[in-house]
């Protein structure tokens, strides 16, 4: 074997793969990486120290948003075209670029572009901490982009760690506060433990299936039943289940799904509201995307080899879908995700009842919304085996939910942060009588909270409606019918439960008497904070009325599941 020319061809092939194929699809992440480096460099040079790091970060995020937008527009299914899956593996199969990657990346970048002005106006971080804060935020967002496009267990773990480790530091941003340091240590210890257990589960799955590449693992899974003597199959299945459950621990932690939700209220209460908004929106979006990646990656094998004959690959896929173990794997994933969804939703909503701190209430609301999102994922995975078209619709429902969730939840956290600046308190009781001094902010809070409940005509209504209609479709097509029926009932009941605690906040703001010592107007809509809140609340109303454009994008994202 001529090893020298072999090496040369490998190098030239990987150079071509990296420079010509992969990097052009990686531009948003590159923008973020360059911005992180710039932020660090700015502190070293005395001239550039004058530059406010928020503007540097915002500039980088805007470039990244532009590239993410042009990537989404460049997809073959854009604007009424045939929304075929445009799956392309990049960086030798470590990452995958498809419509879900493009959509989630666009959401994350849009989040950054809204988030950085919000933190600039709200005053946390102060100018001294700004460079640290934005370095951590952009670094974590980079990890979240990788979570949305991971196609290999190494990337899954790396991306989860890249998103988590900066988040631990962010939770401890208010260094001198007891509560903040407690939040950070709880988050770091639980998070590191969960990712360790996830890694062990990954090692079991990878060792058993002989690969770390998700589509290859799925094909191995499909072929496993034939390759192993019948007597050993039970043991193999047990190890698969164990590995899968351990992997689920890490994912559930990122999603703050029951029973791994306990960190969420403590961290949100202890950390600044700005950090809570970041964890609640960006981290959740990326975690749902990663869950979709893993569930569909392991449950539906696709043509993996670049340049493989597509017709034979399709035939192989059809045959592989019939694989007995693969069906079992899907059933197991649906059962796990569905059970977690029902528990998460119910516990989140019930625990929100007794809360007096607004950040803690929003933390439980975040947990409850993770439950609704998991319901959509469960329906999508249940439908994926038998009805791919309906599975695509279910994925689009989840994608739509994530987009509306960005505006409503970031809006809620922005209001908490600005009211904290005005009232020096985050207790719900301190919001008493706000309507008399600052009616604008109460209307904005009303829009955001009613949308979180899911009442028409706001954006939250359509997202809940789409999730529930995906469940109904799964029931009517009898894919995992009993579980889907349970999920539908639980989801409906929970929506009713959630009315009370969201409306209680509004009731305190409107009906309770104004405290005598309140100094004048707390927050006007005609100010920088008011403009930020308006910029977040108006899309909630607009998306409730003109939702079809966003839904078209979400349908594009759903096309990845085919």
């Amino acid at each position, binding site marked *: 074997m001529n090893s020298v020319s072999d090496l040369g061809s490998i190098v030239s092939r990987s150079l071509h793969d990296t420079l010509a194929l992969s990097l052009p699809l990686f531009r948003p992440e590159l923008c973020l990486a360059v911005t992180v480096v710039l932020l660090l460099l700015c502190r070293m040079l005395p001239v550039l120290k004058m530059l406010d790091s928020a503007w540097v970060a915002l500039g980088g995020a805007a470039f990244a948003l532009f590239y993410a937008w042009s990537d989404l527009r460049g997809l073959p299914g854009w604007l009424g075209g045939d929304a075929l899956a445009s799956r392309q593996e990049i960086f030798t199969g470590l990452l995958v670029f498809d419509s879900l990657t493009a959509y989630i990346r666009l959401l994350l970048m849009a989040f950054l572009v809204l988030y950085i002005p919000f933190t600039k106006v709200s005053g946390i971080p102060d100018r001294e901490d700004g460079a640290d804060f934005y370095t951590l935020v952009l670094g974590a967002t980079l990890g979240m982009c990788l979570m949305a496009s991971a196609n*290999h*267990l*190494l990337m899954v*773990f*790396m991306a989860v*760690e890249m998103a988590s*480790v900066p988040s*631990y*530091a962010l939770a*401890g941003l208010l*260094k*001198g*506060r*007891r*509560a903040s*340091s*407690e*939040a*950070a*240590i*709880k988050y*770091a*210890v639980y998070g*590191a*433990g969960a*990712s*360790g*257990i996830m*890694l*062990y589960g*990954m*090692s*079991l799955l*990878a*060792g*058993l299936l*002989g*690969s*770390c*590449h998700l589509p290859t693992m799925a094909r*191995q899974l499909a072929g496993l039943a034939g390759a192993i*003597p019948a007597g*050993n199959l039970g*043991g*193999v299945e*047990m*190890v698969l289940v*164990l590995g899968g459950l351990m992997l689920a621990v890490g994912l559930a932690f990122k999603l703050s799904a029951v029973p791994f939700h306990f960190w969420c*209220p*403590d961290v949100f*209460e*202890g950390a600044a509201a700005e950090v809570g908004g970041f964890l609640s929106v960006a981290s959740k979006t990326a975690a749902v995307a990663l869950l979709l990646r893993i569930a569909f990656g392991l449950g539906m094998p696709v043509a993996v080899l670049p340049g493989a004959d597509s017709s034979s690959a399709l035939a192989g896929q059809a045959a592989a879908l019939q694989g007995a173990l693969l069906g079992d794997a899907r059933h197991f994933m649906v059962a796990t995700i569905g059970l977690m969804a029902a528990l998460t939703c119910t516990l989140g909503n019930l625990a929100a009842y*007794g*809360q007096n*701190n607004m950040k*803690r209430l929003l933390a439980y609301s975040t947990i409850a919304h993770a439950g609704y999102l998991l319901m959509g994922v469960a329906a999508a995975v249940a439908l994926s085996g038998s009805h791919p078209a309906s599975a695509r619709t279910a994925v689009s429902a989840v994608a739509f939910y994530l987009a509306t969730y960005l505006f409503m939840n970031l809006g809620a956290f922005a209001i908490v942060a600005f009211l904290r600046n005005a009232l020096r308190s985050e207790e719900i009781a301190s919001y008493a009588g706000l309507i008399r001094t600052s009616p604008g902010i109460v209307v904005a809070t009303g829009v955001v909270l009613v949308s979180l409940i899911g009442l028409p005509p706001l954006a939250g209504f359509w997202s809940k409606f789409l999730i529930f209609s995906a469940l109904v479709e799964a029931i009517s097509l009898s894919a995992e019918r009993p579980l889907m029926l349970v999920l539908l009932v639980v989801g409906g009941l929970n929506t009713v439960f959630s009315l009370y605690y969201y409306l209680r906040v509004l009731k305190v703001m409107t009906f309770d008497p104004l405290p005598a010592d309140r100094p004048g107007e707390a927050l006007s809509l005609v100010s920088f904070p008011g403009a930020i809140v308006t910029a977040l609340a108006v899309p909630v109303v607009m998306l409730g009325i003109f939702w079809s454009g966003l839904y078209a994008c979400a349908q594009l994202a759903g096309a990845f599941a085919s």
Partner: protein
Amino acid sequence: MNIVSLSAGCCLFATGPLTEPVGVVHYLIVGAILFTAGVVCMALKRNALGVLMGIELVLNGANLNFVAFSSPYLRGAGSATLGLDGQVIALFVILLAAAEAAVALAITLNFYNNHSTVDIDRADDLKG
């Protein structure tokens, strides 16, 4: 966990693990022991540094699995291995563990500055 992973090893090699030459099963057993020790350490230690050490043990247990699964010598001819993937993952995990430990230690130090203790059970201001 220990027993389950042991049986995992037994499934891969249906023969008794103690009469064979050293194979992947033996590494899996050591990995499972490390993992179990780490989980027990995480669950029982009250000192934050002890918990962090437990996390390192868990990561190293998983690393040992990855390296063992990737070795063609241990798994015998003809059976699928992870190849270089497993070893590369192990290297990356070592790196990430160091980064995570650095951040976690810094957070612990900050916790100590505010609470004058590193006892995890004393972190009970936030609840409800």
